């Protein structure tokens, strides 16, 4: 049974991860070839002397092969094209020569930087396993509804990465207004494709054919104590359901197992949280006791399962104003996620397994 499940699961190719994982280091390496190439002209000016006496140091040809080998090591076989691409990317970034969409989504930065930085964490640290990918439509609007946990919304980032790497689509998350109030976080959120969780934006994105992600538990979900792990909190006021009903897009329930254990929340400082205007100040077994080291998430094993889509196109758009229907669909989504969570927990075995 367990074997079958792991066969169904799509295993993330390690090769692509290894390449991108080193991509960030590649930026540093590029300075080396350049400085080494500067020494190259004087050496090539007198090739015979450089080649014959060993006292002249390392010959230019060897320098060149060394540089080529290093570049090949960093960028792979077609390193020349990759290096040119990287330099072109840096130039575009410095000149502001890139596009953003209406919501401030910077596709290039997200693909080449954010995703590349997250990929090794997803593959090596959390060993993400993704199931039910066939439930994500290849095109058109859809609403992914997920449970929320982990003290810090890492689960959202991992879901975005998983959706992009397996389907090529971008998951556009809807964030709480606190996200857009905080410095740094707000600009990163918009650049990576998020927008404010409000009816206007949700309906705009869905009718525009985007794949939208919501975490209806909000701060109640990520900020719940460790003892309540995998118990779904209230699903907001069902605003996400009325948005889906109004735009007629399917709702895809997503259950994430593993995020609960990354930062076990064992305490809170409500008075300080109120003072700072944030929902909670987390205390974990390692934070703040170990300082920055306490910020390292525990390497739990993650499983993401996309459930069967719940279709909403059978309902008329006007039925979005029927509160009973909205509550029923909300409950249906919540129940599906809760049951899948229990199944996945049984499947996973150990927390770090």
């Amino acid at each position, binding site marked *: 049974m367990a074997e079958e499940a792991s066969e169904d699961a799509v295993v993330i190719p390690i090769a692509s991860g290894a390449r991108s994982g080193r991509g960030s280091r590649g930026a540093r390496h590029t300075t080396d070839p350049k400085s080494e190439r500067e020494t190259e002209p004087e050496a090539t000016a007198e090739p015979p002397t450089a080649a014959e006496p060993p006292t002249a140091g390392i010959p230019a040809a060897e320098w060149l092969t060394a540089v080529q080998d290093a570049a090949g090591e960093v960028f792979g076989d077609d390193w020349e094209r990759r290096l040119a691409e990287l330099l072109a990317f840096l130039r575009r970034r410095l000149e502001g020569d890139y596009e953003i969409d209406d919501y401030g989504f910077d596709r290039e930065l997200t693909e080449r930087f954010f995703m590349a930085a997250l990929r090794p964490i997803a593959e090596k640290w959390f060993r993400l396993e993704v199931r039910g990918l066939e439930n994500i439509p290849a095109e058109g609007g859809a609403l992914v509804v997920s449970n929320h946990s982990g003290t810090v919304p890492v689960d959202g980032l991992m879901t975005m990465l998983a959706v992009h790497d397996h389907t090529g689509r971008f998951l556009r998350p809807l964030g709480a207004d606190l996200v857009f109030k905080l410095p*740094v976080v*707000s600009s990163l959120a918009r650049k990576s494709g998020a927008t404010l969780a409000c009816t206007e934006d949700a309906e705009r994105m869905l009718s525009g054919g985007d794949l939208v992600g919501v975490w209806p538990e909000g701060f109640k979900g990520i900020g719940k104590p460790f003892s309540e792990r995998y118990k779904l909190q209230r699903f907001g006021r069902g605003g996400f359901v009325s948005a889906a009903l109004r735009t007629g897009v399917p709702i895809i329930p997503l259950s994430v197992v593993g995020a609960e254990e990354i930062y076990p929340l064992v305490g809170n400082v409500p008075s300080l949280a109120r003072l700072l205007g944030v929902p909670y100040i987390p205390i974990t077994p390692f934070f703040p006791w170990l300082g920055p080291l306490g910020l390292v998430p525990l390497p739990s094993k993650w499983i993401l399962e996309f459930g069967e889509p719940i279709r909403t196109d059978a309902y008329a758009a006007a039925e979005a104003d029927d509160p009973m229907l909205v509550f029923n669909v909300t409950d249906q989504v919540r129940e599906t996620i809760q049951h899948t969570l229990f199944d996945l927990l049984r499947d996973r075995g150990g927390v770090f397994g």
Partner: protein
Amino acid sequence: MGRVVLVTGVSRDTGRRFARAAAADPSVERVIGVDVVPPRGDLGEVSFVRADIRNPVIAKVLAKEDVDTVVHMSVIATPGSAGGRGMMKELNVIGSMQLLAACQKSATIERLVVKSTTTVYGSSPRDPAMFTEDMGPKRLPSSGYAKDVYEIEGYVRGFARRRSDVAVTMIRAANVIGPHVSSPLTNYFRLPVIPRVLGYDPRLQFLHVDDLLRVLHHAVVTGTPGTFNVAGDGLLTLSQAVRRLGRPSVAMPRFAVGRLGATMRQARLSDFSPEQLGFLTYGRGVDTTRMRTELGFEPTYSTAEAFADFCREVTGAPLDGAGRG
């Protein structure tokens, strides 16, 4: 028989250029320009009436000249150019009220075009990504230009209710940009080092000044009633804009930018108002679907193209003070 158009605020550059362009249109018989001070540039065929719109004289002008179209574009964005915030509010709000009162009395008026701004939507972290015309600001503006415009829009709506026979077009223009445009935002981009709010990268939307003139003209000619957002296609983030401009920028905490802005305002270097600080922190985007479908207007410059045109002027010419005038 052509139209008789009255334009307020002709002593300023955009007002003057619009009045001249309107006068050149064969479907317009006559253009009357009104302002408190005489215009500096050439008005061409426009007949200038020196009148204060805060004064009932404006009603006499409307009646005497058989004006059928009024274009109101004398809302001032900067207290510096008006001679203080008190004066600015007086000119903006009381001036608009007087003008609307005169319009209400007029028997000949058929169309009213008001140049408003997307500043009325405000800027806050709770804003939707794109404002449509039906949405209001998340927080009512408490001071400055935004408050003036918000109040003026209220009076215009009141007028539209009372005189339902008049086609009222309200143009909510995004930040107007272009060569030689002087506005708080263009002056900001003309600073040698551009201060930014640390940790925020607002989305900006621009309207090229030529497109502003065209849309006002379009509204005068077609007389489509309603409120319309008008902006160039697409958006730019502030960091992107600064990079495209090629100017250095320095990021500092929000309170420091506010303090710097106040200092610059006192030193008369630049008008850096609190609502502009909000805009440069949270940004704004407006939806222009209605502009296309109902108004039938298509801007020639996208946001990026309008900004590129502005960049050519800024980087081409040497810096002239803070660029005022």
